Each structure stands twice: as structure tokens, then as C-alpha cells.
């Protein structure tokens, strides 16, 4: 039936000129043509389409056949395949580019990953050919195409392991390779324009014609937008494997090609990576700076350059390591302020790589006047204390220590003060206090003396360390890490620094510390111990009496209420608390012994 309708309308239109085809003609052609293809009569459709007498018709209406054709091609059922492929090829050669573009783009949008991957593989090449036919007005169409393509790529699952990349079950790797091939001619074109323009400026000192320049700029802008977008996705999500792990990596190649694209269109990679610190002149164009160079994309680029060393051959080896660090701090700050684990991991990797280039003790205190040098540690604290992944928390701590090691003594001093003031976390504060102890120990070594961790400068820092946040009411269990490290530091000072030398000033401070720290701590320990002993007694009574306790609150995780703590667990916890107080007290007593002995010498 449909075949007859198709033949009829084609016959009728053969004698008409193409501007007198009616809407009805278009509709009948489309609908009948589609139905024929869907019903498997594509061989007949092919002969109609190839018929010389029908070329005008095909040129005008042929593109409407794209949807069913592509559906068939995507299903890959061999019987129907071959004539459909032939029709497809013919349409691509005959129909108008603009209309083909619409038809092809429409078919890019698919729902399930398999079909998405297949449609990209099928359609990228035709799209490229069509776009190249658009001549000097291709830029905005290219932009639209790239945008759609990347939207589809974003729906594909990402490989995480080396094996997944090799297997490429969801074809992301193939898509990326196809995409690289797709943009090549456009990148070459943009590069040619750029070189021509520069040559012109060189030779004639005149600007290229306004109109031409506008369009060329548009092409470059679309390619820049594309590169920036890929840097965010998929590149920022992916874990690229290095040469040793995976010799041939399509994803690494893809990333390298993106960097090459940027260079080709005149965007110098060093300028992009160092952009946070370079005051760029506003480039007249469509997009403002932040839109033109999204911060996240630049951070991704910095990671590719400094961690994966992509395009290393073209990156100048003349920039100072401190300058690189200063620029990267902006990228690191952005990455570490996000919650996605992929961002955090890359932030940590970039930070590590930037620090490792520096010698210990080489960073001066004036760097701490730069905002990112303070916000990054705060972000690190968040990672160390709140990130769900254990390996990232551990790595965060490792990087924090690495950063501390790179500061000189004055910077360390200021940094410790800052961290004690702002981290609001007992574990972090305890860790900082431990570092202070290490620095004091170092300063006391013969020949290592410095003004920051000895003498009068040290005192304000010591006072801050040897204090209780809430006096005797401080929750000792919550602040345990901090309290123990502070006590350890005090004990260390009292042992190591001779009364007669008093290099750290501790001996003349001791009476104050007694009042502000030791005495309230003793009171606190006693109070807490009494409280917990009471609790223990009550719990054991309750247990014996077998009276079921109604708890005051309950905890639910994912709609399941967690069981109440058993009496045994409660008792265990209380014993543990009491043990902690004993521990604190033993150090207190030891300090007392040591100070009495030394004072009585």
C-alpha cells in the first residue's frame, strides 16, 4: 500500500518544479516512505531514490526518510541493512546540508547507552561531511552539533579500571576516538585562519576584513567551548592510566588531542593553566572570561598537565616551581571545595605534585597572605574529617603534612597559629600540636636555633596550645586528641628544656599554665570521672535488675532504626571513658613529678 502511495506521489511530482510541491506532497512522501522502510521494502525505496528522474524530489524531501533509515541501521539487522545504507549514503550526497543536519542531529538523541554509542558511531562521520558543506557559515551549526554530541556522551557510563577501558563495554573510548576524528578538519580550518591572519598582520599591518574575522572567531570560539566542556566531562571524571599501566589508552589520547586542539586554535596551554595569576586583557568576543574559560575546566587542564604530564613536550620548562604552585593553588582550591570524590582526588593529586617539586623549608611566610594558601588547608580539613572515602582522608592528611614541611619556620609558626584558630576539630588540632612539638625539638638541636620555636616568640603559641577550650567543663572525650597532644608537649618541654636554660620559656610560664590549663584539667578529669563512674554504677544496677530502659532518642539509617546499645556495649564504652581519664591523669601526675623535681634542684 505504502509503496504504491510513494510511487504515486513521486510520479506526480516528477513533472512539477520543486517550488510547486505542495505540503501534501511532502507529507505523503514522508509518511509512505517511512512506512515502506519500516516494513522492509527498502530495496524498492532505493530504486526510487536512485532514479535520475527523481533527484529534485529527493533533494527536497529525501531528508525526511532519515529517521526510519537510521533506526534500521542502528538495529543492525543484516537483511534490511544493505539497501538502507545505500539510501542513506545517497541522501547524504543529494539533500541540502541544513536539512540533513537537522535530521541527523535529531537522531543523536537516544535513551539507552548502547544505542547512544551506536548512533554516535554511525552519525559522526555523516555529520562532519554535512557541516563541511556549510562553508563559511558552519560555526554555529558546528557548535550546536558538538553540544548535542557531548550531551549524549555524558550519558555513557565511564570506565574506571584499566580492564574496563580495554574492554570498553559501553564504547566510551570508541566515542572519544570518533569525536577526535570528527573535529579534526574544523581544528585544521581554524588553525589555517589563525595563521593566515597573523601572516596578514605581519605583511600588510592591516586587519582582515571584519566579516571574515567575525566568522573565523566564531569557529575558534565553538572549538574552545567544546574543548572546555570536554575538560569538565568526561575528562575530569575519568582516571587516566599512565603509560606503564596501559600502553595504549584511547582516553589518554583523547585528552592529549584536546590539549593539541587548544594549542592549534591559539590558546596557549601555559597561559590557560597559569590564568589565575595572569591578568589577561579582555578579548573582544562573544563570551566573557568566566564563561569562556570555566574554572573547573582550567583546573582539569592543570591536572592533565602537572599530574599526567600530557603534552609535556610543548610545555615550557622555565617556570619557577613556586609560581606553578601559586597558580595551581587556585585550581586545587576549586577541586577540594567540591564533594564529588573524583574532584577531591584530583585536587589532592595536583597539590601533591606541585609540592613535591619544592625543597623543604623553601616557602616563605608572605605566601600565607595569599587567600588560597589559607582556604586550601581549610578544605583539606573538610576532606580529612568528612570525606566518606578512607583513602582520600588518609591522603589528605599526608598532603597536609607535605605542605607543612615545605614552609620555612616563620611560615610554619603562622600556619600553626592559623590552624589552631580555625580548624575547630580536636584531631586536626592535636596533629598541629604534634607538629609544633617537632619544630620545638628541631629548634633545640644544636645549630638549629630559630626565633620562632624558642624564646619569647614561642610563648604566645604555647599559651594557645596549653589551654582548655571550655575550662574545667571541657568535654574531655571530645577534645581528647587535642588535650593529649598538649599534655605530651608539656611533658616533653619539661623533660627536654633545662630549668637553668629555659630556652623555650616554659619554666617562667609554668605558674600561668598551672592556672589556665593544669588546674582546670585536673578538675575536669575528676568531674568527668565522677560522672562516668556514676553512669557505670547505674548501668550495672539496671542490667542486674533487668529493667528495660526506654531510650530518649533513636537513630535510623536508611529507614531502619538501629538497635539500642546493649548494656554490655554501654558498660564497655563507660569503662573505656574511665580508662581515658586515667590516661590523662597519669600524664598530669608525671608532669607534676617532673616539675617538682626540677624546681627543687
Amino acid at each position, binding site marked *: 500500500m505504502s509503496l504504491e502511495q510513494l510511487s504515486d506521489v513521486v510520479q506526480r511530482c516528477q513533472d512539477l518544479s520543486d517550488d510547486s510541491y505542495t505540503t501534501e506532497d511532502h507529507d505523503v512522501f514522508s509518511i509512505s516512505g517511512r512506512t515502506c522502510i519500516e516494513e522492509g521494502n527498502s530495496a524498492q525505496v532505493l530504486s526510487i531514490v536512485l532514479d535520475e528522474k527523481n533527484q529534485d524530489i529527493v533533494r527536497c524531501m529525501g531528508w525526511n526518510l532519515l529517521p526510519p533509515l537510521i533506526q534500521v541501521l542502528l538495529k543492525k539487522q543484516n537483511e534490511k541493512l544493505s539497501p538502507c545504507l545505500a539510501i542513506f549514503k545517497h541522501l547524504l550526497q543529494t539533500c541540502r546540508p541544513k536539512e540533513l543536519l537537522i535530521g541527523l542531529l535529531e537522531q543523536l538523541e537516544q535513551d539507552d547507552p548502547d544505542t547512544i554509542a551506536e548512533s554516535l558511531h554511525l552519525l559522526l562521520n555523516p555529520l562532519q561531511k554535512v557541516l563541511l558543506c556549510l562553508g563559511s557559515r558552519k560555526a554555529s551549526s558546528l557548535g550546536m552539533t558538538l553540544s548535542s554530541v557531548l550531551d549524549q556522551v555524558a550519558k555513557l557510563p565511564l570506565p574506571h579500571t584499566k580492564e574496563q577501558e580495554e574492554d570498553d563495554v559501553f564504547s566510551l573510548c570508541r566515542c572519544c576516538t570518533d569525536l577526535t576524528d570528527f573535529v579534526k578538519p574544523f581544528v585544521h580550518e581554524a588553525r589555517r585562519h589563525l595563521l593566515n591572519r597573523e601572516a596578514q598582520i605581519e605583511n600588510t599591518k592591516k586587519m582582515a576584513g571584519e566579516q571574515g574575522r567575525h566568522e573565523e572567531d566564531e569557529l575558534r570560539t565553538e572549538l574552545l567551548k567544546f574543548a572546555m566542556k570536554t575538560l569538565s566531562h568526561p575528562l575530569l571524571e575519568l582516571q587516566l592510566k599512565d603509560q606503564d599501566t596501559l600502553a595504549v589508552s584511547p582516553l589518554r589520547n583523547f585528552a592529549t588531542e584536546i590539549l593539541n586542539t587548544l594549542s592549534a586554535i591559539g590558546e596557549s596551554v601555559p597561559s590557560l593553566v597559569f590564568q589565575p595569576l595572569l591578568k589577561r586583557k579582555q578579548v573582544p568576543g562573544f563570551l566573557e572570561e568566566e564563561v569562556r574559560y570555566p574554572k573547573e575546566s582550567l583546573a582539569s587542564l592543570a591536572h592533565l598537565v602537572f599530574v599526567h604530564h600530557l603534552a609535556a613536550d610543548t610545555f615550557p620548562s622555565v617556570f*619557577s616551581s613556586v609560581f606553578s604552585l601559586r597558580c595551581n593553588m587556585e585550581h586545587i582550591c576549586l577541586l577540594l571545595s567540591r564533594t564529588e570524590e573524583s574532584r577531591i582526588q584530583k585536587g589532592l593529586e595536583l597539590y601533591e605534585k606541585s609540592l613535591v617539586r619544592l625543597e623543604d623549608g623553601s616557602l*616563605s611566610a608572605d605566601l600565607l597572605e595569599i587567600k588560597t594558601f589559607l582556604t586550601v588547608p581549610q578544605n583539606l580539613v573538610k576532606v580529612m574529617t568528612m570525606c566518606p572515602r578512607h583513602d582520600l582522608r588518609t591522603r589528605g592528611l599526608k598532603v597536609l603534612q607535605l605542605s607543612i614541611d615545605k614552609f620555612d619556620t616563620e611560615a610554619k609558626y603562622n600556619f600553626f597559629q592559623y590552624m589552631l584558630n580555625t580548624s575547630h576539630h580536636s584531631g586536626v588540632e592535636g596533629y598541629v600540636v604534634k607538629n609544633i612539638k617537632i619544630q620545638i625539638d628541631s629548634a633545640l638541636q644544636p645549630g638549629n636555633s630559630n626565633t620562632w620555636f624558642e624564646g619569647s616568640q614561642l610563648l604566645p603559641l604555647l599559651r594557645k596550645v596549653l589551654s582548655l577550650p571550655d575550662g574545667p567543663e571541657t568535654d574531655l572525650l571530645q577534645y581528647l586528641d587535642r588535650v593529649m597532644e598538649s599534655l605530651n608537649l608539656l611533658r616533653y618541654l619539661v623533660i627536654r628544656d633545662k630549668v637553668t636554660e629555659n630556652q623555650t620559656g616554659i619554666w617562667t610560664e609554668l*605558674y600561668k599554665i598551672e592556672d589556665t590549663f593544669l588546674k582546670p584539667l585536673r578538675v575536669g578529669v575528676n568531674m568527668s570521672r565522677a560522672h562516668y563512674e556514676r553512669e557505670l554504677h547505674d548501668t550495672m544496677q539496671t542490667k542486674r535488675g533487668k529493667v528495660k530502659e526506654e531510650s530518649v532518642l533513636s537513630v535510623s539509617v536508611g529507614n531502619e532504626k538501629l538497635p539500642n546499645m546493649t548494656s554490655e556495649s554501654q558498660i564497655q564504652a563507660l569503662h573505656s571513658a574511665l580508662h581515658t581519664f586515667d590516661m590523662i591523669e597519669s600524664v598530669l601526675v608525671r608532669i607534676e613529678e617532673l616539675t617538682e623535681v626540677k624546681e627543687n634542684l
Partner: protein
Amino acid sequence: MADEPTREWSDEQLKSDDLPKKDLIKFIQDNGAHSFLNEHKLLGNIKSVAKTAKKEQLIIAYNQLFEGKRFKGSEPVEEVTEQVRVVKIEEKPKEAEVVDEGPPKYFKSVLKKGDKSNFPKKGDNVSCWYTGSLEDGTVFDTNIPLTARKKKQSKPLTFKAGLGRVIRGWDEAILTMSKGETARVEIEPEWAYGRKGLPDSKIPPNAKLIFEVELVAVD
């Protein structure tokens, strides 16, 4: 010279509870020589001394002060030292000590003279073609393409001079070059990439770097 101080309290008064330790300490500190105070552990803040010293000790010290005549001024050098020591440091030292680093850690030889008038100043944008090699001749970096045609298509390296954006050897050398000059600059590791080198690149630790630099533009 001041007159010798006189005893203020009798033995009985000394032993009495009415005489607070800190008065006794103050007297001894006001009148005793620095070395005397040091020996008897009576230096420093009165309150803290009061915590660590027993009344009996103070009485003994007081008596010994008069017996040995270890008064202030009997050891003049000590007094000055004492006064200096007691001065409180109010502010944190602002300037780090200026360390004399010695001679410049790079060596420049001019290969082609520049215009000798356009010298870059700190903060100026400079553009250079360069080739960098190690002492053994390995070229680790260059921005000069192999063919002349490609050179037309490339851009020289541009950066703001004198701001620590590049390795120190470069920063220092470039400020001594004039527009159009080509020079060979040998940079000791301390002013290049130092003990660490550039990890994962051709530059090893403690590498002396040799650059051939052509300064093409200054603005």
C-alpha cells in the same frame, strides 16, 4: 656608685608570716647583683619566683646578700647585660635576616648584541625564543620549531620579567639583556630547579641548565 643598701628587716621579722615572700624577693631583686640572683634562682617574674622558692631559701639568700655584699653595681658589666635582658620585645621581628647569598648563580655570554637601549624592567612583558639543554648536551626544551616556515607559525614565550614567574637564572639574566640580544646563559641548579629537579621530566636533581635565549620583544 650607690650607697650600700641597709637591712630592712630583723631576723624575727623575716621569719614572721606577716612578711610576704614577694616583698622579700623584690628587695633582693632590687639590690642584688645579677649573678647573685642567678645563683639563687631569683631571676624573673616575682610571682613565678615566689612559686618556686621557699621562704627559708629566701631568708638565707637575703642574709647571704649582705654577708657577701653581692649588691647591684658591684658587677657593672652584669648590670647592663641584665637591663638589656629584661627589655621586653614588643613586636615580632618584621624583617627576616638579610642573608648574603654570594655571587650570582648564572653566567651570561652574549652571542649577538641587542640594541643596547631597550632593557626590560621588572614587570615588563618579554618575549623570547630559547633552547634549553643539560650539561651533557641533551636538549630538554625549546620553543623554536625545526623549520623556518613553522617558526612563522609559532609564538615566542612571553612572560612578565623579574617577578619570580620563571626560574631565577632566567629572571636575573633577562633583565641584563636588551632587545634583539641573543645570549648563552648557564644557570647553576640553585637558581634553576635545585635539588629536586623537575620530577618526571628530563631535568634531573642538581642540574646545571644551559639556555640559548633570544630576546625579541620588550613592552
